[in-house]
C-alpha cells in the first residue's frame, strides 16, 4: 500500500543522504521525495512516498526515527491529509491542437508558463491522481517532456481546532 511520510529533519549537510542511504541500504523503495526548509530555518521537511505492507512501513518509520538528525516522522496516510504535486509539461502545440491544449489545461485549472511556435509548457497542480489524469489526456496530443515535483502533504485540521 502507498504511504506518504512527512519527516522533519535537522537542516544540515548530508542529512538527505542519510535518508536515501537508509532506503537503498535496507532495500526500501522511494516513489517520490521532496525536501525544503520549514518555518524554522534549521529544520527541513521531507515528504516521501513509499510502498509496502504494514510491517515494512513500520520498519521504515522506526528506522527513519532512529537517524540522529530526524526530529519527527508522521505517516500522513494514517490521518486525514491533503496531498499536492505539481507538474510541468511541454506539450506539442501546432495550429490544429493549440486550442485543444488550452481547453484541457483550463479544465485542470492549469496555466501556460512558456510558449513557442510549436509547443506550450504548462503547469498543473493537484493530487497525484489529477496529475496522472492530465498527463493521460495530453498524451495523444504529444508530450515532449514531463517534470514532476513529487508529492507534498499537509494534515487537515481537526473539526474543532
Amino acid at each position, binding site marked *: 500500500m502507498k504511504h506518504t511520510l512527512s519527516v522533519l*529533519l*535537522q537542516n544540515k549537510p*548530508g542529512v538527505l543522504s*542519510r535518508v536515501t*542511504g537508509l532506503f537503498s541500504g535496507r532495500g526500501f523503495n522511494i516513489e517520490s521525495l521532496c525536501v525544503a526548509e520549514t518555518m524554522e530555518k534549521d529544520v527541513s521537511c521531507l515528504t516521501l512516498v513509499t510502498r509496502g505492507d504494514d510491517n515494512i512501513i513500520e*520498519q521504515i518509520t522506526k528506522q527513519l526515527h*532512529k537517524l540522529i*538528525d*530526524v*526530529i519527527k516522522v508522521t505517516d500522513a496516510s494514517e490521518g486525514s491529509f491533503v496531498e499536492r504535486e505539481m507538474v510541468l509539461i511541454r506539450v506539442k502545440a501546432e495550429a490544429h491542437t493549440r486550442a485543444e491544449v488550452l481547453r484541457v489545461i483550463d479544465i485542470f485549472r492549469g496555466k501556460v508558463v512558456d510558449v513557442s511556435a510549436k509547443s506550450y509548457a504548462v503547469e498543473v497542480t493537484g493530487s497525484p491522481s489529477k496529475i496522472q489524469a492530465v498527463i493521460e489526456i495530453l498524451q495523444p496530443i504529444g508530450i515532449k517532456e514531463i517534470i514532476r515535483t513529487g508529492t507534498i502533504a499537509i494534515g487537515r485540521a481537526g473539526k474543532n481546532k
Partner: protein
Amino acid sequence: MTTITGAQAVVNCLREEGVKTIFGYPGGAVIDLYDELMDATDLEHILVRHEQAAVHAADGYARATGEVGVALLTSGPGATNGVTGIATAYLDSIPIVILTGQVPTPLIGNDAFQEVDIVGITRPCTKHNFLVNRKEDLVQVMREAFHIARTGRPGPVLVDLPKDLIKAQVKFDDKKPLRMQSYQPNYEPHPGQIAKAGELITQSQRPVLYVGGGVILSDGYQELRDLAKLLNMPVTMTLMGLGSYPGDDDLSMGMLGMHGTYTANMAVSQCDLLISVGARFDDRVTGTLETFAPHAKIIHIDIDPTSISKNVKVDVPLVSDCKRALAELLKWFQNSSSTVSEFRGEAFSDWHAQINSWKEAHPLTYQKDDSDIIKPQYVVEMLDELTNGEAIITTEVGQNQMWAAQFYRYAHPRHFLTSGGLGTMGYGFPAAIGAKMAMPEKTVIDIAGDASIQMCIQELATVKQYNCPIKIAILNNQFLGMVRQWQELFYEKRYASTVMDVAPDFVALAEAYGAVGLRATKKSDVKAVIQEALSTDNTVLMDFEISREEGVYPMVPAGKATTEMLLV
C-alpha cells in the same frame, strides 16, 4: 571561556569524557593533534601497527570496561583502514568514538592528497558521524559524539576533523548538560507493558529467557540473574549474551542457534513463552523464521524500537533499557507476592524435567578417544580449567570462535569479546590489546585460528612496545576451518581455497617479534603449554596443532529449522 587551539580543544574534550587511553596511528592530517597529545601525559596513546587494529582495540577496551573507546586515525587510507573496525563495532552496538583527520576545509572535494569522504563511506556503519566544517562547532560536536556513542543503543560515532580547524583558535567553554532536539532515547519501560509481560509470564508453563548483548551493554546482568532465580526460569544466551548469566548455573542452557546446544534449541522450539532481552532475532539464532519458537508468545525487551518486530512478530514489545525493564519486572513480581509464591519451588517442574532430559541425552561434547591427537575443544576446556573461568577471552571468527563460545564457561559479563554481528577475522588479537590495556590485572587470551590470526598479526609489535602481555592460543588446523566444514558438509569435500598449509612458523614468528612462542603437537603437551604461557610475563603465542578436520557441532545447516541439528 578560553581561546585555545583546535587540537587543545579536542584533547580537553577527551579529558572531559574521562578518556585515559587512545589507540591510533599518525599521519599528515593529524600531526597537530599528535603534537598536542605528546604533552598530554595523562592520556596514554597506544601506537598500533595498522589502523584496523586501532579501532578493534578501542572496541575491545569498550567491551571490557563499558566506557567509550577512542581511536585516532589520519585522513584517507588511515580512515579507510579503520572501516572494518567501525562496522564491527556498529553491528555489535559498541560505544566507540573514532577521530579521523581530514584535509583542510578549502581542499575538501578537490581530490586532495589523502582525501577521502570518510563521512560518506561510514554513514551506513556508524550510529552517527560528523564532518566538522566550522571551528565554532568543534567542541559541541566532540561532546555530542561521546553522548551519542554511549547513550541509547550504543554504537560507533566518527568525527572527521579538517586540519585547518585543528590548527585554528577556538573558544572553549565549560560543558553544560546536552540536550539534542532530535535524539532522546527512551530508557524507561512502559508500566502497562511491564504488567502485560508479568501476566504472560505467570500464565506460561514452559518459559525461556533468551538473552543477548543488550543485557551486558546495559549492565543488567544482576537483574537478569535475580529474575531468573526468582522465577526459576531457564536461560539461553546468544553469542553476544555469553557471560550475562553464569554458564555453569543449573538454569543455563548455554548458547542457542546455529552452533547452540541441543537443549537450548529444543527448549526454544517447545517453549510457550519466549522472553527476549536485548537480543535481535538474528538469522544465526532463528534458523528459518517460520519454525522458530512456533508455540511461543513473545515478550521482546530492547532499547531500539527498530529491533522489535523486525524479524519476528512479538506479543509484548517493551522499548526500554534492558536493566531497567528487568528491574521493573522484578518489582512487579515482588509486589504481586501471591503469584510469585506459586512460581517458587515446584514452578515449571515438568518443564525443567524435560530440559534436564535433553541435557542428559545430548550434552555439549565432542568425540574423545585415547589417541594423543589434540582436539580443539579440549584446548578450550583446559584454558577454562587453568584460568578458573576468570580470564577475558577474545576470539577471531570461525571455528575458533564457536569452540571458544561452547567450551569456556563464562561466569561474568564483559569476559567474552567477539565479533558477533559482522564476523570479523582479525578482531580478537587487537581487541585483546584493548582489554588488557584497560584491565592490566586480568589474564587476556585470544582464541584464534591459524588463518584469522594472520589478519592482524602485526600487532605483536604493539604488545612488545607497551609490555602488554597477551596470550594467544592458535587452534591450528591448517585450514580456513569453518568454510572447510561447510565444504565438507555441503560441497562434497571440495576444499576450494581453504587449505592453509602454507603458513609461517608461528613460534619463530612470535620470537622474531620479541614474544614467546610455544608449540603443542600432542594432547599430553596441552596443559603444560598453557601453564607455562599463563606463568610467563610476556606475550605468549601458543600454537596447538589440532586434529585437522574437526567440526563444530551441534550445527544447524543454513536454511533449516533449529531443531534439525547435526550432532556429534
